[in-house]
């Protein structure tokens, strides 16, 4: 309010000075100067708030007001519009810090280095997160999938005899279907084994090499599984003599670990019907997984020989208790 009044007064005095330059400087003293201004204001705006304010203000400080008016006129030659324009249109606004924050070659280099650093930190965090996913996320995913497979397999196997039983699979199950359950007491784990060793087949479960023998058959029942915490992570803990139990729809087959070794990824002979070091006609079980953990340049192999079988109706084998 007061600033508005002051501004109005300055403009009024400036305008009066512009209208009659000769009386102001020549007539020394307040009375000649104040009279035309008061009358002019009184004529143009009879009820304006500056009316009552003007006489006492002008009478008290006529000289300083005039001095300020001349300075203002010298600084801003067009009196009215330019004083309002910077406030209304902000396009010309510049902070007092703009000199310090404006883009310069050095600041752009700093910004580029900072951005690169943030990017590198982000990549590191993403890789850490991926490591966490590989360890914990995969475990949860595989465990959940195994639980589903286990339930499905139980339902499939335990269909009451006679009641619309699914066509009994003669020979080998179709690719991707469940083959058996694999129990390893040493690792305190069991899995549903599916048919096939393609990455899609063994995504959630150990897979049976399709051309190898079936459980209990003469030959080599061969299984591949991931080296993840929910599958064959601790397969290197297996010792000679440990039981490995395979459960099919009709039978339990108990195998005993005979040998474990590390081979090249190309050593396909370990899943042959007669791997090196075993007699022809043996009933074998072979597990392959990757070695070392998190890498793929070797394979960890566990061979086991068949020791006993019993029908599923006879209950769980002693090796599992």
């Amino acid at each position, binding site marked *: 309010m007061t600033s508005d009044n002051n501004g109005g007064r300055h403009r009024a005095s400036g305008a009066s000075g512009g209208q009659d330059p000769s009386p102001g400087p020549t007539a020394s003293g307040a009375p000649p100067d104040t009279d035309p201004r008061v009358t002019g204001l009184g004529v143009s705006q009879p009820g304006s708030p500056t009316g009552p304010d003007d006489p006492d203000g002008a009478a008290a400080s006529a000289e300083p007001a005039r001095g300020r008016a001349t300075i203002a006129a010298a600084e801003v030659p067009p009196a009215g519009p330019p004083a309002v324009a910077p406030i209304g249109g902000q396009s010309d606004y510049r902070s007092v810090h703009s000199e310090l924050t404006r883009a310069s070659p050095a600041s752009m280099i700093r910004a580029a280095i900072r951005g690169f650093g943030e990017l590198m930190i982000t990549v590191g965090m993403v890789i850490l997160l991926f490591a966490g996913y590989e360890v914990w996320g995969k475990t949860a995913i595989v465990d959940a999938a195994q639980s589903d497979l286990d339930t499905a397999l139980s339902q499939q196997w335990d269909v009451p005899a006679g009641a619309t039983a699914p066509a009994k699979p003669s020979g080998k199950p179709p690719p991707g279907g469940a083959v058996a359950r694999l129990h390893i007491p040493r690792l305190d784990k069991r899995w549903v084994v599916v048919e096939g060793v393609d990455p899609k087949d063994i995504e959630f479960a150990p897979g049976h090499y399709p051309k190898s023998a079936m459980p209990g058959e003469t030959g080599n029942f061969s299984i591949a599984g991931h080296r993840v915490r929910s599958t064959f992570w601790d397969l290197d803990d297996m010792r000679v003599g440990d039981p490995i139990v395979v459960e099919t729809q009709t039978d339990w087959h108990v195998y005993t670990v005979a040998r474990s070794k590390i081979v090249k990824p*190309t050593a396909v002979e370990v899943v042959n019907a007669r791997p090196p070091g075993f007699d022809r006609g043996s009933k074998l079980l072979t597990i*392959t997984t990757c070695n070392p953990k998190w890498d793929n340049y070797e394979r960890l192999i566990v061979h086991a020989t068949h020791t006993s079988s019993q029908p599923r109706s006879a209950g769980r084998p002693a090796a599992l208790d």
Partner: protein
Amino acid sequence: MYGWIWNHLPGGRPGKLIGSAILLAGAVALLWYVVFPWAEPLLPFDDVQVTEGGGAADTVTQ
């Protein structure tokens, strides 16, 4: 990058914190449920078969 995001998040400091948490959770979920499952088979961690090709599981024998 992060400074730009922080400056453009609305809602004062609480809003910025909440917005940051939401953005972070979204990024982690996107990575965990979409990007990692997609990228994982492309990485050589888990080739478990013995194959004649060695390494990649192109031709699984026996």
